[in-house]
């Protein structure tokens, strides 16, 4: 069988449990690595406030569906958040910050 995509896994404990559950079931988690069941995309979502950036979620993708880039290049959203999507193993653990 094809080798499954591996993504860095980290969920913000403040995020709601429904979301955590859905991302948890996106693939087996061991330590900080998730093996994706249904996607070859890894995602990273980050929250920006008072000049600080904190990780909101690192995991196998659930809703993005498309990930043309090999590296996780950030895209700003709504002044308060940043996302990145990528298509190589553990790529969401090595963010390329764009400004």
């Amino acid at each position: 069988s094809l080798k499954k995509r591996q993504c860095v896994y980290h969920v913000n404990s403040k995020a709601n449990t429904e979301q955590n559950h859905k991302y948890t079931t996106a693939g087996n988690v061991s330590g900080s690595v998730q093996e994706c069941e249904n996607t070859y995309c890894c995602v990273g979502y980050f929250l920006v406030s008072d000049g600080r950036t904190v990780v909101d979620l690192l995991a196998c993708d659930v809703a993005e569906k498309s990930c043309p880039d090999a590296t996780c290049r950030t895209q700003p959203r709504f002044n308060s958040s940043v996302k990145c999507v990528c298509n190589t193993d553990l790529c969401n653990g090595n963010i390329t910050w764009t400004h």
Partner: protein
Amino acid sequence: VGQRTPRAGSTNPARGNVCSLRSLTVSLEKHLMGPNTAVINNCRGSCAFPMLNTNNHAVLLNSHIESGNVEERAPCCVPVAYEALEVVDLNEHGTYLSIKPDVVARECGCR
């Protein structure tokens, strides 16, 4: 069984300009955390007689307009069935997955 079902955006010359589903991809970047784009489709084409996938109101309205009442709003080609889309939304606690209803047009009709 075995027949091909028409796809959004397919070019069927027999269909002509009759009201039907066409593929449409839009950006969600101004609205949601993700995904960046979605195929939401659109309904386009003529709703003149003979109308496809219509209802009694549109048939009577079309007949009324064809009797000379050209100032009335004519039947319009619009989605009549939709599918939901799972998206990444954002609130004060962070991102969350959300099922948004009626995002993707699935069927068109003259209304």
